């Protein structure tokens, strides 16, 4: 009897000390690291700065490109990876990773057509694809003309400008073209870099922007934030519902809100060509990759705490930088998935809403 009590006390003490050890370990994580996509870098950096000021936890993010981010998280050199293009559920399972959308942006066709007012040009997905396939060669082509009654289009050659570097922007753009044009999906397809049938390549958003600005009759595509900050002349697009929409925060959120996230295994969701009257058709989310089984649960929890904080406190900062925050419904779905799927080696969840450091 006495022995048993002693045993229990001993066990209790051991358990307590383990818990204390675990707690101090969690408290010790002062730095988390990530690598990947360049597109969300400005907002991640801003969040990191504000989060460090509030909690003292530093977030170190290397914007080396989505491809590099995927490679680094697979090599386990960083705590999380970031990618502009979602990984397929099969690839996630193979690597033991989980992904979730963090923030949204859109891709905007930008044009330099002499005589056409900024924002006045209207295009449909099919026509956009035919332009990028090199099948429509002149601005006064009747296929463009019928979409733009009353707009006087010049008789000048179209110069297509695309990204020269592999890029998440290209992935989203070619994903849209593949969805709306059978010609595009069979001849070119969807990837971070593709075999462009025509055109010149600029490096980065700024490369595309400067070529479009320089070459008369040029059409290219850039990130929404970039187009906005540089006051570029964009084109309206006809969405799935047949409405012409302009790229704005509201039309991106409409696209995200209409998407069926609940039925997207592994959050594999591409927001291009979504239904809804107000949906901008070339919207995309950028994703975070973490391991489902966390070898260092304290670090895993610190990473999720950071993103939880960003979901709930970062919207204003994101909007300032012209990113579009995720809708609240998607956020709660993501956080439910965290507490369900991310665990340590003993299958204990590493994160729950109660421990959030908001």
């Amino acid at each position: 009897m006495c022995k048993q009590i002693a045993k229990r006390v001993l066990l209790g003490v051991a358990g307590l000390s383990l818990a204390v050890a675990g707690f101090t370990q969690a408290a010790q994580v002062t730095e988390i690291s990530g690598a990947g996509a360049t597109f969300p870098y400005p907002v991640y950096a801003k969040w990191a700065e504000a989060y460090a000021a509030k909690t003292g936890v530093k977030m170190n993010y290397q914007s080396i490109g989505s491809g590099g981010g995927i490679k680094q998280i697979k090599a386990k050199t960083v705590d999380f990876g970031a990618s502009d293009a979602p990984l397929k559920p099969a690839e996630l399972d193979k690597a033991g990773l989980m992904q979730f959308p963090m923030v949204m942006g859109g891709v905007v066709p930008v044009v330099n057509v002499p005589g056409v007012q900024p924002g006045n040009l209207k295009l449909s997905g099919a026509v956009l694809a035919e332009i990028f396939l090199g099948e429509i060669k002149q601005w006064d082509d009747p296929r463009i003309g019928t979409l733009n009654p009353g707009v006087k289009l010049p008789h000048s050659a179209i110069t297509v400008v695309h990204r020269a570097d592999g890029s998440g922007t290209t992935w989203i753009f070619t994903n849209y073209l593949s969805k709306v044009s059978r010609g595009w999906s069979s001849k070119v397809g969807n990837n971070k870099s593709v075999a462009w049938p025509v055109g010149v390549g600029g490096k980065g958003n700024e490369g595309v922007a400067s070529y479009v600005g320089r070459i008369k009759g040029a059409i290219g595509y850039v990130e929404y934030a970039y187009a906005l900050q540089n006051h570029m002349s964009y084109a309206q697009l006809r969405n799935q519902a047949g409405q012409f929409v302009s790229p704005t925060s509201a039309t991106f959120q409409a696209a995200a809100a209409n998407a069926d996230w609940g039925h997207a295994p592994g959050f594999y969701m591409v927001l291009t060509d979504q239904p809804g009257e107000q949906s901008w058709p070339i919207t995309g989310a950028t994703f975070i990759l973490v391991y489902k089984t966390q070898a260092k649960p304290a670090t895993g929890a610190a990473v999720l705490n950071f993103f939880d904080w960003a979901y709930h406190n970062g919207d204003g900062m994101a909007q300032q930088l012209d990113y579009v925050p995720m809708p609240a419904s998607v956020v709660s779905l993501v956080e439910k998935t965290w507490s369900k799927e991310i665990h340590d080696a003993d299958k204990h969840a590493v994160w729950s809403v109660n421990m959030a450091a908001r």
Partner: protein
Amino acid sequence: MSLVSTTEHTRLLLRRGLRIDGLFHGLSAAAAVLVLLVVFGVLAALLLGALPALQRFGFGFLISDAWNPVTDDFGALVAVFGTLVTSAIALCIAVPISFGIALFITQLAPAWLKQPVATAVELLAAIPSIIYGMWGLFVFAPRFAGHVQPWITDHLGQWPLLGPLFQGPPMGIGMFTAGLILAIMVIPFIAAVMRDVFDIVPAVLKESAYGLGATTWEVVWQVVLPYTRSAVIGGVMLGLGRALGETMAVTFVIGNAQRLDASLFMPGSTIASTLANEFTEATGELHTASLIALGLILFLITFVVLALARLMLLRLASRQGTVG
């Protein structure tokens, strides 16, 4: 007694000196071997990384003009073609100009002007390549597209044979612009080598020629140049080596299209620009391997060119001994 100890002491000193000498010898040999190891290590790493692409495409990799990350079909032809053509354009422009610069500095310029001109040319080599790229894109390309290119296309574009080289919409960027920027970048290298070797031509030879009534042109063409021919070619090769591997400036102005085009005014790509553009976002194994294979090809081309350059410069050095 004291004599013996002195000999003993000397022997000790000698032995210690020999030991230090041996150590020094070993260290410097190790440093030299390290460089060799690094070179072969790089080669081995490139070969290993490129293996998947080489296994999949074999020799066809060299002659295929495909570059399609979607279907995983890759070939090196477009990039190799772009690399060789832009470098060739660069040399066509840079060699005559460098020759003129070297000639002026060594043979014609008054003494007070020699150093300023030489320094100015060398300063060109100190400008970072990205500055050349930005200048090419923001300053040169728009002016070239606006004023020069339409005229060339209108006048030369209709010529038989040469015409197709100068067709296409005036964009200001493309293979020709890349070649021109490269020319400016390699001029200081070629000019510096030419100047150095023109300077080592023995005065006796030149003065004898002048004494026989030769003009400056005849002295240069018939005495200086034949004497330094292999070194001049070596200098050109050094410039070529730099032009082949230049990355940033070319990426800015070449237009980065993976297509073969006869016109020099159309966009293309080089090995280095393709690597700079695509390496960060290449996720597929074959895509990455193909990029590394491109790197391997560039390594081999540059290696051969630089080896030839060394050889030519060496030949001059040995000849200098016999004549001088």
